[in-house]
């Protein structure tokens, strides 16, 4: 603790501030507390200063998202991973149960419909367990076969797909029949599922519609159509009779698309640009490809890299949990504002963000980056501030003389190539070279 003034035996602001910021050692803290226990003036000072600090912290925290507060006593709340895992497991079990139940439901309904009248209960009661056992033994085999089909890396021809589906149905029926030890009479459900090996007749097909219909379409789509078109084309086919028609239609569409895909891609149809091609895009092309709110992104002859960075940052998630409403990038610094008007700075192209302490009034609505063109930007945006940055020694000397202050030596700071601007809701403008320190324009 530094020595107080002889005229005043109170501890100095340095010590009081260190106490407020919890930077004192134990011994020094005890000394200060002993003094403050007897000095109402110093107590008032620390309470007022702490209150002001709290206000400042509070205003900064308002700009940040509210995090879930974990109470020390609520031990279960701290087990977040376990809670999440338990919830996921519950959802998975529920989904599995529902899928199994839905798969079994029509069979059970049919079996109920096929139940003989009550008068013959003695004769019917014996096959019923066999049917239930069979029906429960089918789904895993069907699931397995359908899983194998959907996971097949090689696209199938429609006829091959149909054949494979029929084979799956046959194997299902065979496995179901082998599960039955005795040739007991099967009810209607078993008969419909058990398709004869060469029974590709009209009666056998409906039994396999539960699994088969979409498969040829899927295989067609896998072969020919990438992306969302696959889903759009797979949707129409639901029924067996429509199957052949849609297969034909799909074959036509696939052929068309394949023909299209074999053509060279036209620039107007390019959706995504990656790698080297993006680096070759000119400024105007990039500006044209900016989203609808691209007016918020500074595009005044900044480098293509800056523009691309600013454009990409529009989709970033800020520490406030929001996406930016306006971004600007220059000199490898990326700035973004969110809906709350909080300003964030990133020096690594949006990987990490840092909240910039508010040095302005009101709510920021717009963020811009401007290049400094010698002789133009100075009069346009920054006036004296830019001039000083560009010609530090001469301006500093002039200003120092005007104010009677001493400024010694030339400043070795290089002139920045661009500067940022923010505009608040009342139209006032602040400028900054580094994005951290802002000065009113």
């Amino acid at each position: 603790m530094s020595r107080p003034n002889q005229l005043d035996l109170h501890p100095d602001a340095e010590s009081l501030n260190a106490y407020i910021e919890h930077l004192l050692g134990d011994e020094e803290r005890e000394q200060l507390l002993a003094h403050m226990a007897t000095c109402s003036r110093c107590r008032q000072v620390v309470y007022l200063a702490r209150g002001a600090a709290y206000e400042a912290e509070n205003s900064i925290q308002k700009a940040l998202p509210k995090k879930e507060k974990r109470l020390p006593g609520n031990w279960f709340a701290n087990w977040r991973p376990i809670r999440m895992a338990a919830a996921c497991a519950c959802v998975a079990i529920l989904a599995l149960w529902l899928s199994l139940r839905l798969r079994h439901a029509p069979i059970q309904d049919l079996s109920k419909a096929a139940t003989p009248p009550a008068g013959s209960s003695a004769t019917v009661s014996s096959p019923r367990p066999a049917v239930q056992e069979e029906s429960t033994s089918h789904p895993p085999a069907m699931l397995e076969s359908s899983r194998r089909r959907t996971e097949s890396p090689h696209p199938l021809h429609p006829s091959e797909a149909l054949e494979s589906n029929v084979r799956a149905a046959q194997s299902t029926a065979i496995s179901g029949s082998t599960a039955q030890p005795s040739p007991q009479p099967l009810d209607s459900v078993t008969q419909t599922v058990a398709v004869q090996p060469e029974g590709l007749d009209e009666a056998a097909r409906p039994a396999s519609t539960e699994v088969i219909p979409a498969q040829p379409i899927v295989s067609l789509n896998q072969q020919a159509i990438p992306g969302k078109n696959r889903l759009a084309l797979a949707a129409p086919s639901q029924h067996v009779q429509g199957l052949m028609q849609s297969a034909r239609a799909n074959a036509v569409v696939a052929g068309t698309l394949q023909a299209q895909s074999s053509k060279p891609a036209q620039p107007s149809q390019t959706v995504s640009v990656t790698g080297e091609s993006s680096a070759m895009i000119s400024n105007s092309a990039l500006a044209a490809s900016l989203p609808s709110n691209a007016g918020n992104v500074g595009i005044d002859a900044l480098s293509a890299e800056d523009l691309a960075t600013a454009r990409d940052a529009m989709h970033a998630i800020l520490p406030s949990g929001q996406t930016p409403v306006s971004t600007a990038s220059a000199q490898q610094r990326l700035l973004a504002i969110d809906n709350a008007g909080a300003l964030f700075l990133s020096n690594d192209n949006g990987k990490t963000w840092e909240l910039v302490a508010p040095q302005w009034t009101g709510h920021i609505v717009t963020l811009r980056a401007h290049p400094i063109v010698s002789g133009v930007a100075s009069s346009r945006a920054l006036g004296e501030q830019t001039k000083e940055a560009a010609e530090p020694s001469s301006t500093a000397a002039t200003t120092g003389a005007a104010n009677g202050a001493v400024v010694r030596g030339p400043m070795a700071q290089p002139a920045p190539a661009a500067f940022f601007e923010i505009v608040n809701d009342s139209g006032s403008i602040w400028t900054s070279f580094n994005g951290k320190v802002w000065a009113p324009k």
Partner: protein
Amino acid sequence: LRYRDGVGVTPSQPAATLSKSDILPASRHLSSIESSLLEELWQLCDAASYGLTRNQFTEIALDIEMERNFGQPPGTIASPERQAIFFRSLKLPDLMLARACARGNELAWRHFLALFEQPLIRAAIAITGNETQGRDLADALYAELYGLTSREIERSGEKDGSAEPAEVKRLCPLNSYQGRGSLIGWLRTILAQRHVDHHRRTWREQPLSAFSEDVASQFESPTLGSSPASTLIELNLLSQTVEEALSQLPAEDRFLLASYYLDGRTLLQIARLLHVHEATVSRKLHRLTGELRKHVLRNLQKAGLSKRAAQEALGTDPRDLDLNFKKLLQTSPSESFSEKAGL
């Protein structure tokens, strides 16, 4: 410039007492700080952004070193590790900015304003609870921080035609900032000091007639004069016991009691200052008053009172006691700050 207690520019700020003759040439000390450490500190402070040259930076670092000798007793030579620990323990970017401002660097002042102008105004408004007063307070502080410096430069420039950095350093309050805490925290504390001192000074100027006799009579003992002799003995005993119990409390507990019972601070305010939950403060206060009561009871019984008589004595109207709790809490026999500071 000298100011009375509670009056003036920096009542509790020790004015920097370095004179020109105290500062040894920079070349003599250049070797006392490791060049690698200087380079690291230079990078850390980003002082070039407000126009500080490398030489000026080195001079300021040497000034800091001379003032505090790396936190070691005078005459001790600090090892490079100790030097690094010392500088890293400081808020060096803030300290460099403050020293650059104190040296009259205009760009540093602009940087200072850009960083602290709005926070300073907000802090002043929070301290005064009034926007107008807050802005006045912040403006006055800034005028002192900046205005005194430039005025003194002008004066010294008029005298001998050259501005002396040592003279500037002596007057600027920013020179008393030593970088232990943050600069904005230091500024807030200065603002709070100014406000409290101003309030206390103007409060003292109120006429004594405002304190009416009716109000004063409320605090007089209603039964003291008519009490029998035995009651008076008990009251004296109780006063001594309470005094003894309070004096044996640790400093933090007395601070807590004074804050809550004398200053009327809320649990939340105390909790924020101590960085604990307000329930903790409440529990601590409850425990403290309970222990005080037990202690007083025990001591009364030791002094010869029966348990019942001691409990009855505790039920005495506090106005009957010849005790000034405020004085008692504020004149603790424990070693005070000023005593420990060697004054």
